[in-house]
């Protein structure tokens, strides 16, 4: 074997600058995840069809029978965004289990990259993928009549909160992905993520639920996220009435996202560093 390209001994003495490698390494890892996703026809099909189907289901199938005090398309669009994003983000758990089932995780860990970049790459890729899904949901909604008179700042705020939610759910998915042993077990999170928005103010006002369920709906993380996004985009609350100051709701929403994100990512990193040792 020839060694025309001399790359010998590159690592020696490079230690002080190692933290500088975290960002480019994370980007490389994310690039890998995205490239693999693009070549998976099943995943692509679901990513494209799910938003369309859920939107049709809610607006045309259930929508006619649900009275929320405003047009149902506007009311439900933020919920559909979170539903699709949550489901997409939860697929990160399955992707992580699949990585662990081949030797590739061991190879990454035997290389001079920080363990955290493997997880961070998945989070970054999932955030990118699900922002695309969010765009598709909005495009579908707009094509069937969704209109928002929100200003640029309100849109920016809404996108920011949705992004925070996606990142938080992906971190939770990362924890499930490093704990679960089989793709089927990891897929369980997708079920929870598809279910959680239903028991919130996403599709019906919580006031219509029995007291015990309303208690859950009003105190779970999806509700403040929905209330914030809906308030920003169409200026209405879950009861269909105009909302005023969203500051407190937004703060609760972001606190939930930050809490879920930090706790699950810390736990995931802890488990990841010890697995197989």
């Amino acid at each position, binding site marked *: *074997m*020839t*060694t*025309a*390209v001399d*790359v*010998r001994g*590159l*690592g*020696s003495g*490079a*230690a002080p600058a*190692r933290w500088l*490698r975290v960002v*480019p*390494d994370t980007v*490389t*890892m994310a*690039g*890998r995840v995205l*490239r*693999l996703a693009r*070549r*998976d026809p099943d995943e692509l099909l679901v990513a494209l069809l799910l938003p369309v189907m859920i939107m049709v289901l809610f607006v045309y199938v259930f929508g006619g029978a649900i009275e929320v005090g405003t047009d149902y398309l506007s009311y439900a669009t933020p919920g559909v965004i979170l539903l699709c994003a949550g489901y997409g983000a939860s697929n990160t758990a399955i992707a992580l289990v699949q990585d662990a089932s*081949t*030797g*590739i995780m*061991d*190879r*990454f*860990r*035997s*290389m*001079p*990259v920080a363990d955290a970049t493997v997880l961070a790459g998945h989070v970054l890729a999932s955030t990118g993928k699900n922002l695309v899904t969010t765009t598709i949901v909005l495009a579908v909604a707009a094509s069937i009549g969704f209109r928002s008179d929100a200003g640029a700042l309100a849109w920016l705020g809404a996108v920011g909160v949705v992004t925070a939610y996606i990142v938080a759910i992906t971190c939770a998915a990362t924890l499930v992905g490093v704990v679960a042993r089989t793709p089927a077990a990891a897929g369980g999170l997708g079920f929870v993520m598809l279910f959680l928005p239903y028991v919130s103010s996403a599709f019906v006002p919580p006031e219509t639920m029995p007291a015990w369920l309303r208690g859950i709906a009003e105190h779970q993380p999806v509700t403040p996220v929905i209330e914030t996004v809906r308030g920003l985009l169409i200026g209405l609350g879950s009861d269909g009435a105009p909302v005023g100051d969203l500051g407190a709701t937004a703060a609760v929403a972001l606190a939930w996202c930050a809490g879920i994100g930090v706790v699950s990512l810390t736990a995931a990193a802890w488990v990841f560093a010890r697995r*197989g*040792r």
Partner: protein
Amino acid sequence: MDDPVVRAEGLYKSYGGTRRPVRVLDGVDLRLGHGEVLALLGPNGAGKTTTVRVLSTLTRPDAGTAVVAGHDVVTAARRVREVIGLTGQYAAVDEKLTGRENLAMMARLAHLPRRAVRARVDELLEAFDLAGAAGRQLRTYSGGMRRRLDLAAGLLRHPRVLFLDEPTTGLDPRSRHGMWDVIGGVVADGTSLLLTTQYLEEADRLADRVAMIDGGRVVAEGTPAQLKREVGDASVELTFAAVAEATRVASALGVPTPAARVLRVPTDASVGHVRHVLAGVEAAGAVPEQWQLRAPSLDDAFLALTGHAARGADDREPVEVAA
């Protein structure tokens, strides 16, 4: 070997929690010299993979120390990772990426200078006879091609120490020989190599030194030549109708008494010696039910060198380990 590039002393590792722990490593001692090739030879479950995992920083030993290129695998894992290459038993490549994409990604993660990535990837694809398939996704590759790419991925940075865990297990004979040639080329480059294998032939072909591992410890060590001298190149295997008959032939031929109806007589496999053995059988008035010329197996090697058969994973009892 005053200054080995890999030195492991008293490695212990148990799995399975505190209730019924199974000791996988039971005091492994190893040394690998600069530019040397050491084969860890043993049956499934002997502790080969765990040893490689400890040395490549993937698994933390319960006790013992291991130093790779001057860095402790536990306290300086990051340093170790900068100078090793690992190709494990399971494919560490992405099926849906092309050969070139796989290597380029690994090259970036190995922190090759941006300018060097393309040239180094091309160089390895060429050297491993994969240039023609570089643009194809890996799911179209044969088993041998995939292993070669996997090996190339571990070599991107010219590692000082290369670990190969069962590099040819599951390959057909032709691909296996191709893989041996490739590994031979890497070693000729001066890379220190520790490989694990279940095949005596593979250890003989590639290694300067062989460490036989069984039940989580190194049970014998030597050059392939020493090993083969002990084991014998081959044996004439005779199956008789009764143990008594086999015993009678054994004493006539002056070989150890067998415990069963099967008698193995070491041979250099030359026509003259085989004829001599068979003539001896005939002279003893015995008629074997069947006979064959047999290459030495891993079992023969264990028997010859350790006096007992390889135990592997299945026969191993869980041991009590202080939690």
